[in-house]
């Protein structure tokens, strides 16, 4: 099972990194989501993998799984979910305003670039 989980994290990370390097808003956001999935699974495994063990105290149970990574993952999920929503909104605003979804700076074409600023 360790191999399965480790490969899953590896594939998610590799896919995420590839998409992040595409430098267009939509693939980059998808890549970020994949990366956060990868890190969530990774955090989950930091308390060691154990199948069918409860994380909280119960009568008659000998083996427990580490509850802390589950709490950490929960925090990480909430934060990354909120952040993704924020970046989608800002990215959409930037795309609608400039009709261009490049994430990196494009070479400036017009000289009066600072005119539109307030």
């Amino acid at each position: 099972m360790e191999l399965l989980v480790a490969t899953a994290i590896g594939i998610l990370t590799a896919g995420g990194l590839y998409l992040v390097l595409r430098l267009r808003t939509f693939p980059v956001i998808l890549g970020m989501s994949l990366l956060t999935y990868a890190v969530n699974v990774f955090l989950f495994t930091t308390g060691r993998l154990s199948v069918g063990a409860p994380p909280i105290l119960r009568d008659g149970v000998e083996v427990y799984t580490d509850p802390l990574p589950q709490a950490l993952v929960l925090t990480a999920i909430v934060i990354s979910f909120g952040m993704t929503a924020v970046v989608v909104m800002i990215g959409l605003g930037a795309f609608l305003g400039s009709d261009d979804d490049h994430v990196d700076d494009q070479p400036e074409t017009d000289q009066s670039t600072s005119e539109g600023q307030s």
Partner: protein
Amino acid sequence: MSHWIAAPIILPAFVAPFIVLSARYHIGIQRVLSVFGVLALIVIAASLALDASDGTITLYQMGDWAAPFGIVLVGDKLSTMMVLLTAVLALFVLLYAIGSGWDNRGWHFHALFQFQLMGIMGAFLTGDLFNLFVFFEVLLIASYGLMIHAGGTKRLKAGVQYVLFNLIGSTLFLFALGSIYAETGTLNMADLANRVALIGADETVGIRVAAVLLLMVFAIKAALVPLHFWLPSSYAEAPAPVAALFAIMTKVGAYAIIRVYTMIFSPQLEATAGLFDVWLLPAALVSLALGMLGVLAAKKLDRLVAFAVIGSMGMVMISIALFTPAGIAAALYYIVHSTFAGAALFLISDLVRSSRANVDLTAQPVMSGNALTAGLFFVGAIAMAGLPPLSGFLGKLLILDAAYDSDLMVWIWVVVLSSSLVSILGFARAGSILFWKAHSVPAPDGTEPMPSPSPLSYVAVGGLITLLAAHTVFAGQVHGYTSTIAAQLFTPEPYISTVVETPGKLSTPKGDH
């Protein structure tokens, strides 16, 4: 257990929603609440710093749970100094935002400002690595809102870059925290310090990976080359008061490096040897050189200041990477200086922007308020470039002195001194184009002169410049204090024993209190 140490986090956390809920449509009330909130923060921060100045370490256990099971806030000399620095900076930035009307060009400036302060204060005060991550996110979420305050396509585009870069940084942070937890089973800094020291010499693979990942995360925050690419665009496009407040955010990265690498991965630790002299120091030297070259090459004033910030972070990092008490003391002195100098220059670039059509470094007709703005720019540039008599010069002298015994002493001296020369050229070029050449360009007929910036804006910038002057005059005292901070950092045992050994709810019988 004194509750005051939590106040710098709690107070903005209450002021911000109160502003949103009760004063949403009244900019006047928002301003009053925000200014009073920051004033109260300064008083609290000053008294906390006073408490910590005799070496006491204040511990606050959230929910009365003992470390490492609960989250703790710890106030020692370093964290209370950074809290005080943030609060003082926030006041002048806020005054500028009010004076220039920036806070009224979009929604919720004051609420986001308070949330940002909450995140920064929390990052300085927390004693738990995962909690540090959470406070990083709090300050980042608020900074995303502030960064795109007042909108505009260019600003949104820069905002996308800024958010994405920081999201990747956060993901990296989580990977680092995950590997640390997998190796040691704890995320409390003091507990980690004990456990990392116990790891056997042949089992250090995991913890070394974690240490490098963590250093990269903090280097992203501190805008260290080659992880600095997010900074120039976002700082230049952010509203000026926001960029000025961001001057403290790069220092959060520097603070986290000092905190984590003096306590957890201490210099004596064999597993992380070479992290600083082999990797961090060269990166810091390149940052300084690149930042100052950027100052010379910049075509706009706001980019120029952004590169000056990168350069000054390089200077701070050189001093930190020496990893001696003298180096850390000099770095802390320089951190205070470069926070005020960077913030002042961002505000000055906005003074220029508001009294002239743009901030391009080209000769244009004389701007309104030329003489006063030019004077402020002159002083700010002297401070940032590190010319005598201001604190930049003293800070640089301290860093050069601290580097005297280093193996790379020649490199450090050469880079620091030659990059200073380059930055002086850059600032002189910018200043003479902006303020002197303007006199030879006649104003086109029939154009109304732009309105002068408001007096309150000048008061805010002047206040920051005055602080720089005070930082120079009291350099002896300040450096003496930063030396005691460094001494406290290099003897972390009292910190660790205070955090780990103080009993909490768990070790007290029921009904005992």
